[in-house]
């Protein structure tokens, strides 16, 4: 089954409709637009000149772009971003379900959790995790593990817990919004077919909630990537930390900060592309015809026709 809107809209080849004489008129001249464009370009040129002639050693940036310390920092930043998001999403889903639960204890606990972690700055939370040794001197999970708290709470674990637990509070709200956005009739229809609560949630509600959940979650990932630069508070060796170290050692402090900005931009751009495809996947069935991906558009142009339909195949 393929319904091709483009083709249907096009007139048949053998009978070109007679086009009436197009109107010839002098268009309105938008002088204001020209002035505005010139102004903006002038300001941009001034800015570029200022940076180019400023006291910045630009050559240092490509030199250090693939420096091993910088790459280690970048790897750690990506690692902490991914792992914190995993904690955030898993815990967030649990919290969202807890908040909707009929059990008053679980819903209150979830509410309290969200209240605390959304109500305090993540920077403060990171410091708190770092200094939790004042409360717990030892960690003692009887048969498995016993250690001093300060040895157990490495910078990595501090950063992971600090960012992940904070993120869970935000993800919980995003997931709750997604779950409540699904029409109640869907749950009723699934129940009427004899599906259990769990199956209804897993097979019917969650896949539809994903359409609401995925876009803000993509934003959260991009936010997390940038927020992760705060882990400098717990001395975790991330991209910003490595850039500062390299900059201090080599005397190119500002240059390395610009370099860090470049890497952050590259990473967020890659994530944005990933988000586009994820959203497209969960849009299945919601629109009559999925828009073509840039790759499909290019392919279609090369093969010289739009005879492929994406609606059924995605």
């Amino acid at each position, binding site marked *: *089954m393929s*319904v091709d809107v483009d083709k249907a809209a096009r007139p048949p080849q053998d009978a070109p409709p007679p086009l009436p004489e197009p109107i010839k008129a002098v268009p309105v001249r938008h002088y204001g637009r020209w002035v505005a464009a010139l102004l903006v370009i002038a300001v941009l040129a001034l800015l570029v000149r200022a940076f180019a002639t400023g006291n910045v050693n630009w050559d240092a940036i490509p030199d250090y772009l693939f420096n091993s310390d910088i790459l280690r920092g970048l790897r750690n930043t990506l690692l902490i971003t991914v792992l914190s998001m995993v904690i955030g999403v898993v815990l967030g889903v649990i919290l969202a379900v807890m908040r909707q639960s009929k059990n008053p204890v679980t819903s209150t606990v979830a509410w309290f959790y969200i209240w605390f972690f959304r109500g305090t700055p993540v920077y403060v939370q990171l410091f708190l995790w770092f200094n939790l040794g004042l409360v717990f001197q030892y960690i003692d999970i009887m048969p498995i593990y016993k250690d001093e708290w300060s040895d157990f709470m490495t910078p990595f674990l501090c950063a992971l817990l600090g960012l992940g637990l904070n993120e869970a509070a935000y993800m919980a709200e995003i997931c709750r919004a997604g779950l409540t956005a699904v*029409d109640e*009739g*869907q749950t*009723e*229809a*699934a*129940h*009427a*077919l*004899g*599906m*259990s*609560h769990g*199956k209804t949630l897993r*097979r*019917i509600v969650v*896949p*539809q909630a994903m359409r609401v959940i995925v876009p803000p979650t993509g934003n959260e990932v991009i936010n997390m990537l940038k927020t992760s630069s705060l882990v400098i508070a717990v001395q975790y060796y991330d991209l910003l930390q490595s850039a500062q170290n390299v900059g201090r050692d080599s005397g190119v402090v500002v240059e390395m900060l610009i370099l860090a900005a470049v890497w952050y931009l590259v990473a967020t751009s890659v994530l944005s592309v990933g988000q586009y495809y994820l959203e497209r996947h969960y849009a*299945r*069935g*919601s*629109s*009559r015809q999925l828009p073509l991906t840039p790759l499909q558009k290019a392919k279609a142009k090369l093969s010289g026709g739009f005879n492929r339909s994406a*609606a*059924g195949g995605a």
Partner: protein
Amino acid sequence: MTDKNNKAVPMVKAEGVHKSFGAAHILKGIDLEVAPKEVFCLIGPSGSGKSTFLRCINHLEKINAGRLSVDGELVGYREHNGKLYELRDREVAARRRDIGMVFQRFNLFPHMTAVENVMEAPVQVKGESKASARERALKLLDRVGLKDKAGNYPSQLSGGQQQRVAIARALAMEPKLMLFDEPTSALDPELVGDVLDVMKDLAADGMTMVVVTHEMGFAREVGDSLVFMDDGVVVESGHPRDVLTKPQHERTKSFLSKVL
């Protein structure tokens, strides 16, 4: 299905069923019986409680008082030594497998194609293999005249087509009772006929059906019995032809004069 007196057990039996939402008293003591293989039509003005009663039959709503049973089994409860025990969610779900329901607003799963909608419950609830469920689903879609739409998502189907897929989806569980909640009310007039044809076909096959409807023509042609409800009580019941042409109560007369 017979009891001690060799009389058929009613498919649905309601005795003094009450239902209220907070302060709103919706059902005020409903008594009725639906025999097996019967097409039972419920009519009445909006707000009379007919949809609520239908939803009580498969426990989408909990009744507050009275007894309601389907095929001899209480809805939502188990009776043991004269005491009622509430059923667990799992047991409620198990009872619902035998009762198909068709909604006014279709409620198809929008993220699944037509054939996947029909396959979903047999595969997920009954544990049927995907291959056999698909084969049966395609047959059911053929039966409702939508074989060539199997791969379409609900958003690519018209309202009438969606409702017919919804009927096929309910039939896939091989129910012994089908509930229809105003199945044609959300449809364009020209699409109503297709859906009614499918329902007539079902009735001819001997399916027990409880139909909340405003389609008096359907009720007269296909219905075996008809109940007129108003303000939470059954005002009048009998054979559709009798009730529709010779209503006894003033309330029924005034309602029918407006809709016929």
